[in-house]
């Protein structure tokens, strides 16, 4: 029984702890930093698709988000990372007003969608209008217990598209977009519940893509999937950025490093740091970010 205690204390010290001082030195000319500089230029160069401005959010009297300021660059993947309970999912769900489904929730500040400058969380903005513009993919694959075709077609039907040929064309396009067309083209009329977990999640991505959203939100989309299905989804996310702006919450830091262009680190309801992903993972400017990505907590 005592052996457990021994192995814990015997954990070797993390290497980064000793490297802190060097890599942070200003003006150091390491290759990784210059790449980061390139990306930071890109960060400024990319037009903003949306921006959170002094965003606050309350569950009842409990403030879950505090003064969040974040720019979401167009056609880029922005990852939200942070320990459980830091508010990253809460923040993500503000973008399509999912919180409105619960009683006793309140927004403060603004999320401005470009180019028409609609405040997504403003009381004057209809949450349904917001959800028609911004798609979401959830943590657990949640296809409707209907056929694959009807799953993808549902959003289109809501938008008044009922023409058969038109629907078929758009459904195929969405399924191709989510790299699952070849796997399901012969079973479009089978129940989506008969698919594997990874396939279901890609059908859910197709369902969100079919309506051509301006921003696509991913809430830990691979946490219920095996590594192979995860790899497929990650590859897909990287490709999708050409067509849509992506915001992804992930618990998996390697995933954030693999798929995202920019990473925002959140802690206790606040945005601690946001930067180009390579910069965040090699040379974060805040101590808390570094502690988190090196696995010291969270």
């Amino acid at each position: 029984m005592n052996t457990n205690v021994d192995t814990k204390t015997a954990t070797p010290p993390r290497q980064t702890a000793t490297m802190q001082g060097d890599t942070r030195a200003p003006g150091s000319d390491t290759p990784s930093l210059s790449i980061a500089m390139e990306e930071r230029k890109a960060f400024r160069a990319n037009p903003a698709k949306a921006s959170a401005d002094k965003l606050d959010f309350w569950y009842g009297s409990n403030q879950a988000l505090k003064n969040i300021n974040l720019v979401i660059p167009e056609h880029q993947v922005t990852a939200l990372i942070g320990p459980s309970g830091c508010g990253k999912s809460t923040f993500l769900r503000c973008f399509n007003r999912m919180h409105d489904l619960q009683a006793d929730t309140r927004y403060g500040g603004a999320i401005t969608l470009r180019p028409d400058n609609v405040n997504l969380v403003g009381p004057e903005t209809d949450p349904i209008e917001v959800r028609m513009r911004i798609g979401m993919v959830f943590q657990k694959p949640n296809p409707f217990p209907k056929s694959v075709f009807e799953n993808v077609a549902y959003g289109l039907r809501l938008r008044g598209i009922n023409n058969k040929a038109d629907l078929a064309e758009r459904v195929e396009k969405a399924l191709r977009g989510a790299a699952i067309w070849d796997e399901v083209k012969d079973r479009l009329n089978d129940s989506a519940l008969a698919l594997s977990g990874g396939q279901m999640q890609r059908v859910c991505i197709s369902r969100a893509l079919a309506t051509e959203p301006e921003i696509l939100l991913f809430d830990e989309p691979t946490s219920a999937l095996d590594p192979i299905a995860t790899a497929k989804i990650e590859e897909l996310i990287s490709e999708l950025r050409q067509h849509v702006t992506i915001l992804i919450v992930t618990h998996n830091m390697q995933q954030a490093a693999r798929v995202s262009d920019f990473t925002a680190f959140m802690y206790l309801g606040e945005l601690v740091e946001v930067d180009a992903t390579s910069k965040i993972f090699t040379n974060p400017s805040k101590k808390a970010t570094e502690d988190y990505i090196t696995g010291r907590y969270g």
Partner: protein
Amino acid sequence: MAATTLTLEQIRRGLSWRKQLDKVFIAIGMALLFGCLAILAILFFDLVRDGSSRFGWDFFTSFPSRKAENAGILSAAVGTMLIMVVTALVALPVGVAAAIYLEEYAPKNWFTGIIEINVTNLAGVPSIIYGLLALGLFVYQFNFGQSVLTAGLTLALLILPIVIVATRESLRSVPRAIREAAYGLGATRWEVTKDHVLPYSTGGILTGLILGLSRAIGETAPLITIGALSFIAFLPPSPVSGEFPFLNFEWLMSEFTAMPIQMFNWVSRPDQAFQSNAAAAGAILLGMTLAMNAVAIWIRYRFRKKISW
């Protein structure tokens, strides 16, 4: 350390004792279960045996008669079926609508809290109270008379709480993730309800309705209270007619009798021969109830197979 470490010997001895306890529990459970089922089976076979002399085509196609051997259940069976149709057609839409409102739309506050508690309590109100309510409201106030309509409405009121509770249960079992998926695509609350929540809970709703009907089919007290006749030698006008518009609603206002009332009437006759009639009618009524429950189970099974979260 040593105190908590068991030898293999000790582990095996302890485990065999615990497994014995498991078997004892299974034995007790099986004994109780089969005891209950045996009582029901004995009751059913007793009714069948007592009524065996009366089973035959004539019994189903004859009106009641002063002579036991000529009497049948035609008017009672038809009356029961028509009442059940009215009950189902009223209880289903009203109950489902009420449940949808309470579950999907109503804000959670003290007022809806009181409504919810009362709906649940209504299921426990004695059925004769519903009979009194119906007598005052439907018979005298609305002048529906002692009709199929009044009986159907009364029994609909009686099973409304059952339908509401079963429907709410069923709506609630649709996972939040499914609702969020639909809302996330831009659906309104009504679209989420109509396209998803309601279709996915149809199995549970129909099961609740049928269980409610199988309770209503045996209710006697409220029907006697509203004044059902026990001796009717005619059938209500047919609902289907040969001329336009082919449907006829006169049967709604027709006087009626029902299976349990016919049984009650026969049981209270001094002539022993009528007891056989009562037993035969009882067996048929019990058979109807069991058949309805079987349909409910089948529906639930089919929907469960189709939808698994």
